[in-house]
């Protein structure tokens, strides 16, 4: 059985800028794979290449075992793709948008009806079916975009930052829908800049400057954090960070809203850090050994 998605050493540059550098990713059937990284990391380029909208410079992407650049027609009619920007027709109603995508994928009208009822139940958009897409809220727009893409029941769906700019409640609902799809066997390839969404994926890849820094299950990646980590709990993390920068190597410090993290790369231990704080006369509520999060890992990897 061919893998739904297999990306092999994919590279792509725009002029002199290398946007994607030898990226390799595989997605198994029914799996949710999250491509996680900041803006400009190359997520969109990987995804557009995967859905045949861009041609790679080297390497290749395979969809259901077929090379994407050789079978763009097959990819385009079988994959489900949700671009980064809201890409539905704002002057068409919810129902008209769904019908349009149904017709586009040559689904008979009676099957479209049944499919729409399923999707309405799934997305709870039924009460808004006559509303113009442009008048929907951000979260509903994304649910509609997902529904449109699901009209032709693709086995593999690819979503580019679907939760970008969406409120937390809608975000969690949206991820609930993705989880349900994956339970039914749909393979999901999704990109996001939100680290906290990583836990909702089966496997993730951290991407930065076009390179995959690490891949694996979220827990596995975090467990592999190589150094002891301490968290300084303080009133004003920014202030503490500035003072500590002059005594500790800056690449050992990670500034977060909740406090300052110290990556103890020299394995000097907690006491040594407490001494440093006393010498620098830094007031804090406490220092404790901390479990790494994906954000700690990401900052450590891009160092």
């Amino acid at each position, binding site marked *: 059985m061919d893998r739904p998605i297999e990306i092999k050493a994919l590279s792509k540059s725009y002029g002199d800028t290398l946007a994607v550098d030898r990226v390799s990713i595989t997605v198994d059937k029914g799996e949710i794979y999250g491509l996680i990284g900041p803006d400009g990391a190359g997520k969109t380029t990987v995804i557009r290449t995967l859905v045949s909208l861009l041609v790679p410079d080297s390497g290749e992407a395979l969809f259901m075992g077929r090379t994407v650049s050789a079978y763009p027609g097959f990819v385009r009619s079988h*994959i489900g793709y949700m*671009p980064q920007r809201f*890409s539905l027709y704002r*002057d068409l109603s919810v129902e008209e948008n769904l019908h349009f995508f149904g017709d*586009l994928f040559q689904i008979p009208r009676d099957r479209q009806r049944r499919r729409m009822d399923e999707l309405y139940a799934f997305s709870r958009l039924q009460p808004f079916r006559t509303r113009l897409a442009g008048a929907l809220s951000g979260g509903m727009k994304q649910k509609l975009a997902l529904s449109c893409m699901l009209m032709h029941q693709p086995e593999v769906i690819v979503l580019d930052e679907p939760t970008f700019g969406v409120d937390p409640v809608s975000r969690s609902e949206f991820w609930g829908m993705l989880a349900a799809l994956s339970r039914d066997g749909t393979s999901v390839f999704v990109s996001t800049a939100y680290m906290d969404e990583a836990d909702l994926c089966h496997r993730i890849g951290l991407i930065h400057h076009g390179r995959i820094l690490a891949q694996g299950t979220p827990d596995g990646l975090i467990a592999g954090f190589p150094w002891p980590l301490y968290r300084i709990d303080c009133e004003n993390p920014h202030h503490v960070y500035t003072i500590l920068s002059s005594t500790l190597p800056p690449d050992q410090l990670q500034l977060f809203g909740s406090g300052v993290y110290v990556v103890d790369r020299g394995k000097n231990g907690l006491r040594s850090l407490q001494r440093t704080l006393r010498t620098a006369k830094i007031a804090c509520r406490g220092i404790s050994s901390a479990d790494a999060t994906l954000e700690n890992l990401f900052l450590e990897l891009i160092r």
Partner: protein
Amino acid sequence: MKKVLWSIISKEFIHIRRDKQTLAIVILWPLLMLFLYGYAITLEMKEIPTIITDLAHNPLSREYVDDIASSRFFRVTGRDIAESEIEPVFRHRRARCVIVIPPSFGKDDPGNRIIQLIIDASDPNAANYIHTYLGTITASFNRRHSGGMRLPFRFEPRLLYNPDLKSSFFFVPGLVAVIIMLFSALLSSIAIVREKEMGTLEQILVSPLTPMQLVIGKLVPYLLLSLADSILVLIVAHVCFTVPMHGSGILLLATLIIYVVSGLSFGLLISTVTRSQQIAMMATMVITVLPSFLLSGFIFPVRSMPLLFQGISQIIPATHFLIIIRGIMLKGAGLAELMPQLGALTLFSLVLISVSIRKFHTTLE
């Protein structure tokens, strides 16, 4: 296959229906232009402000002055001004011509039979008309006073196709040609660029849709819209401006379709190389509308253009369609007479459509 095409067509009709503003512009603007060109803009001149300086003041000179004053071409706005005042009069635009009758007018002095006509030729077209009109009045005055002398001959013109020389007969069919080019090119260029700008193209590219289906799907709705628009303009032209329809309506409709397709495909071609609606509009204006206005023979005859422009005019669809529509409406020309023009238009449309289908990018490269 058919379903995909139909999905694009029906979606496009919804866009047209929902965008009331554009729809209103598409319907009202051609009518506005029609009324402007039909009523306000005319090449005929009348009531030309004229000053007559009669230095003879005898019965004969008075008769001549009356001839001028009673014609509808000239309106006498002043009399008997000094020679030094002529230039100030033109500068203040109080008159466009000054007629000076010499003191010796009507006396038997063969050396002094010249009447001076001084024309403000800053508008050369108007100057020409003034010259011709006064020539006509003078000729009939001279005939009356030639004392029954037999003239060697007289010629009598017969005006065919537009006996009253109404400029609306000339303009209105031409205007239809220009309006159709404007709207078909503009509508189709915007239709695809809008999808690029809104990001919707990226979404529908990842589907079984082929470039051919997208292009044809975009063409059909705007073809119908442009056709409806042109038929409306033609009906209004026929009813309000009594522009005759001597030829076959079916033939006109068939050529209209070919012409509209050429305009739509121009727009498509523009839309394949531009990214924003604004640039597409500007490009359409420059590439299709301006040439259709200026170089097609809509106002200025192609034959009197410099050779380079005559050459350019041959690759403007409006040039050919103008000959066709004026031929059918005013002269009742048939298929046989219009074959070369029809051939050129068909060739245009086919070439443009196939180029725009080929140039249509199915990737985001």
